[in-house]
């Protein structure tokens, strides 16, 4: 069933359109930077963007930092929100379940397919960022940490891999929320928008001083903490809190999805 779900995801035009669009914005930014040579001053603008003018190899991280706040979560919410509700809406869910595919099994396969999509999207964004960055921007091996000291290429590679894993985990939190909503409704759009509403609310509360007490628990709170992996020495505090928080979100919402979906009347 996992194979079937992967085939469904990969053969769907939407998957590739989404990934294409995800790459559009970072590529546009790279072109603009290359043409104008006007990077944001260090410490302002999206993370890493001030450094990429001299070192294009950092651009994959800059690309991830550009898509992470909005584009990537939207894509993940759409795909995960569609996973069960989309099948309900199209009516295929009843035929899948009477094949029969066990409900727990189906949910698991959907989750694997969403994870595969997140990985694919993040890797394509990083790879495109690398290609675009080295082609258009400087490629002096001047890799420097956000703290100003220089990093060896091996350190950059290792920390890039860690960041990608961190971003994937953050997106799994989104996916779990969207998947849960997807099991509660027959509207794929409703599930995706519901998940986005949660994220927007989280972002709004994050900027509000009065919500300080809530902030450590907001799903988006530690999303950009992967930047800390490029400090020298690495600042682990927020990264670890982010990992723990996302694991809790994933566990709670997946549990809720399972409890809801396995006991639900399929009337679609």
């Amino acid at each position, binding site marked *: 069933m996992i194979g079937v779900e992967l085939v469904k995801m990969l053969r769907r035009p939407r998957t590739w359109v989404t990934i294409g669009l995800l790459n559009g914005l970072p590529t546009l930014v790279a072109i603009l930077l290359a043409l104008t040579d006007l990077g944001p001053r260090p410490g302002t603008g999206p993370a890493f963007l001030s450094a990429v003018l001299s070192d294009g190899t950092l651009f994959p991280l800059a690309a991830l930092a550009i898509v992470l706040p909005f584009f990537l979560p939207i894509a993940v919410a759409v795909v995960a929100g569609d996973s069960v509700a989309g099948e309900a809406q199209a009516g295929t869910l009843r035929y899948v379940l*009477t094949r029969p595919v066990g409900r727990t099994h189906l949910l698991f396969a959907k989750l694997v397919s969403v994870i595969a999509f997140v990985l694919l999207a993040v890797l394509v964004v990083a790879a495109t960022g690398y290609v675009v960055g080295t082609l258009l921007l400087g490629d002096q091996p001047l890799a420097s940490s956000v703290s100003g000291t220089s990093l060896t290429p091996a350190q950059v590679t290792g920390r890039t891999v860690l960041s990608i894993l961190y971003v994937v985990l953050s997106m799994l939190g989104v996916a779990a929320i969207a998947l849960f909503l997807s099991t509660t409704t027959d509207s794929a759009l409703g599930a995706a928008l519901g998940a986005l509403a949660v994220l927007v609310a989280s972002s709004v509360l994050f900027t509000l001083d009065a919500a300080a007490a809530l902030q450590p628990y907001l799903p988006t709170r530690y999303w950009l903490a992967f930047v800390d992996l490029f400090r020298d020495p690495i600042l682990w505090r927020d990264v670890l809190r982010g990992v723990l928080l996302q694991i809790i979100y994933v566990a709670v919402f997946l549990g809720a999805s399972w409890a809801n979906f396995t006991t639900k009347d399929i009337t679609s």
Partner: protein
Amino acid sequence: MIVTRGLTKRYGAVLAVDDVDLDVRTGDIYGFLGANGSGKTTTVRMLLGLVLATTGKIELFGQAMPHAARSVLPQVGSLVEGPAAYGHLSGRANLSLFDAMGTGGPRRTRRARIDEVLAQVGLTDVGRRAVNAYSLGMRQRLGLAAALLRAPRLLVLDEPTNGLDPQGIREIRELLLQLHAGGTTIFLSSHLLAEVEQMCTRVGVLDRGRLVLQEKLSVLQAPTGRTVVRTPDANRAQALLDGRLERRDGSRLLVRGADAAEVNALLVGGGVRVDELGAERRSLEQVVLAATEGAVPGSVTP
């Protein structure tokens, strides 16, 4: 093959299905009749484990559903509330996905199985086209093809001829009769009386969630013990049949007595000209109407 005991489904305050005891036997073509909203689809969904019963038991092939879904459902082909498919994929690709789902058919023979069911439903020529470009009738056939994958012992079909033209309806009916002849039991849920009357061997009628009738079609349509006479000399016939006449509508007389030949001899002997004469049989429509109006037709269910 399908047995339910006290099957009940309650949605909040609404009793959608109320204490239904279905009995579908091996080799039946079972016509499951009922008006829209009578609970047919909910019942079908409960049989397939999609909707969970509030109370009551379901057995398919003697195994409890939905507990034994993993061993029961691979032997069941179903079409519930219209067909559904992944629109951006071709008919073939859809069947291939459905075939691979769950326990999955063997990959080696998948192609042959798909060719076979496409040919059975008459879609061979358009199998490679995206389903988005299919007409309603073609989608219906594709849904049926998916139900036929893995040669099920039991077909549960909800309105299988929906959206088909008369030619298509006949083709599907012939296909179903052919499958039935090959040993497949068919549970056909429909609101089309004519369809059920033409094909089914047994009939169940659902009315506002209750099973008000379940009987062999041949019993339901057995002679009623009365003879229908059409004659231009109705007044004379009435006098001759004195006391045996049950009803008269113009030139049509309803006479007590199952022996049409005897009635005929009596009338002709008395000089009454007879246009038409025969044993009275109820149409399925009359039976269903009588059953759903609450007046269970005791005269026809021995």
